[in-house]
């Protein structure tokens, strides 16, 4: 039975190792729709909840290749087709001098596509998120670690999931209203 008013179940931990161990056990128990929150980036925590890859690297690569091609083609076209001009007797297609702009545009495009790709893929900015309905959650930006199992998970059960999380050595467990 899914209750549309419930977003999930949240457990609070006061140290990173407990959070990592809890996340691993939650994943091992068959829960897949879960998320972890920490005051600083913890790579092991991301791995523990089964978060391995995201599309940002690919978006960044494509953006970089696009910037690289665009910049070089633009300079080649200007110097060879649109407005050929003799500069110090050098060949029109003086590619070494095109490299700097090509390089900078590659960096610019890959940087911008990484930022906007990240925002598109993670759905930010997000004015409302149910986890903030739990008052203690504000500690996630200070010194506490949180693990949330979403109600949309097929193994989610209001009573059993709470009991499961309570067995993982948390400081507190709370239901998150949607």
């Amino acid at each position, binding site marked *: 039975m899914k209750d549309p008013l419930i977003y999930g179940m949240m457990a609070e931990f006061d140290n990173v*190792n407990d959070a990592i*161990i809890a996340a691993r056990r939650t994943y091992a128990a068959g829960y897949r729709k879960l998320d972890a929150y920490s005051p600083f980036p913890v*790579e*092991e925590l991301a791995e523990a909840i089964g978060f391995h890859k995201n599309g940002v*690297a690919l978006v960044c*690569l494509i953006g970089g290749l696009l910037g690289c091609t665009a910049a070089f083609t633009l300079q080649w076209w200007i110097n060879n087709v649109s407005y050929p001009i003799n500069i*110090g007797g050098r060949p029109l297609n003086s590619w*070494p*001098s095109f*490299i*700097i702009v090509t390089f900078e545009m590659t960096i610019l495009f890959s940087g911008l596509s990484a930022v906007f790709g990240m925002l598109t893929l993670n759905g930010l900015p997000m004015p409302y998120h149910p986890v903030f309905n739990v008052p203690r959650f504000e500690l996630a930006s200070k010194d506490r670690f949180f693990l949330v199992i979403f109600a949309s998970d097929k193994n989610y059960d209001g009573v059993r999931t709470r009991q499961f999380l309570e067995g993982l050595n948390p400081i507190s467990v709370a239901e998150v209203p949607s």
Partner: protein
Amino acid sequence: MTAVRTNTIEFRVPEAVNTISQRSLGIGLLFGVASLIFALVPATREQFFHSYLIGFMLWLGVALGSMAFVMIQHLTGGKWAMVIRRQLEAAMNTLPLMAVLFIPILAAGIPYLYNGNHEAVGGFSGWLHPDPADKHLVEMSKSYLTVSGYTGRAVIYFAIWLGLAFILSRWSGEQDHPPVRNLSPRFRLIAAPGIILYAFTISFAVIDWVMSIDPHWYSTIFGFIFIVGECLSAMCMMVIIERILSRYEPMASLLKPKEVHDHGKLMLTFVLLWAYFGFSQLLIIWAGNLPMEIRFFTRRLYSGWQVIALGLVIFHFAIPFLFLLSRPFKQNSRSLVRLAAWLLFMRFIDLFWYIEPNFHKALTFHWGYLLDLVVPIAIGGLWLALFFRNLRSRPLLPVYDLHAQEFLEYVGAAHD
């Protein structure tokens, strides 16, 4: 905090490296004797010293690059550094060998390296016996580029390097004994000025040893190209060594994919910087198109040498760059070690491309290029033998360092 682990026996270097060390020494002696024969025969002595300079610069680069990393890690800290700190120090402590190996150049090599190249076309006058018509060079060969100046400066460079290595190594040795202390503030006092000194001394050294072969040519970025090359060589060597050591305890449980990943990222950094500085040098000289400067590239981008230049662009930069973009590739020391070995070979090709075109206008088959392989292998064998001997003399972690304790806690936490 978990209990402090200070059992140094636990961190002893595995016995298995003794075999590698002995084999390296064997190869070094075998190739060394072969090289010595070429050095003694007058007809091949000139080629011997060209090859010797290539081999010397290659292995000096690994030693000095490692010293630079030792100083960097005292300033930045980090787990990536703790796991290779003792290996870096062992590599840094091969500098006395490099100082001894410089003596042949001082004693006998100068006439064969700095006497210019009097080819019918495209030849140039060296600083040792300059063309009297060349007023500027005659002046230089009386003031800065003199045999005594060359020797005196070399003594100063080695004194500074050996002094830095001695202090850094000695203080590190204190961390093998109780109590657990944080020596980082003291290390920083020597590491910060040490890095600046390293940058200056190596710049002056490569101007003396490599750039002055063609005394009219100069490039202001030359020192930085060598600094970056040396750091790349050192990091590649560390990736190779950590791969060998990680087959045994204690390194098997100390080396984590995260730290291998960091070493891969540093390789990427230095591959990119090498390309960046190399291209900057090309672009500025190409755009200026001045006779004295462009000569460097007209020698190295025509008459067959362009094959090596293009090879460097592809195999020293483009292909390693593409591999190093991949995250799983950098995290796996088994895949990373192959690229590291390859890049170390490309470091040799890079030095070959910098040094040999001074003496041969066109790249055609020349028996001497075989000696260019033999002599670096000889020096490398001796270098590795001393490196492993240094490595065995101390535990693989400075266990009484506060940061080593933090590192052990982290490695322990990553276990469960």
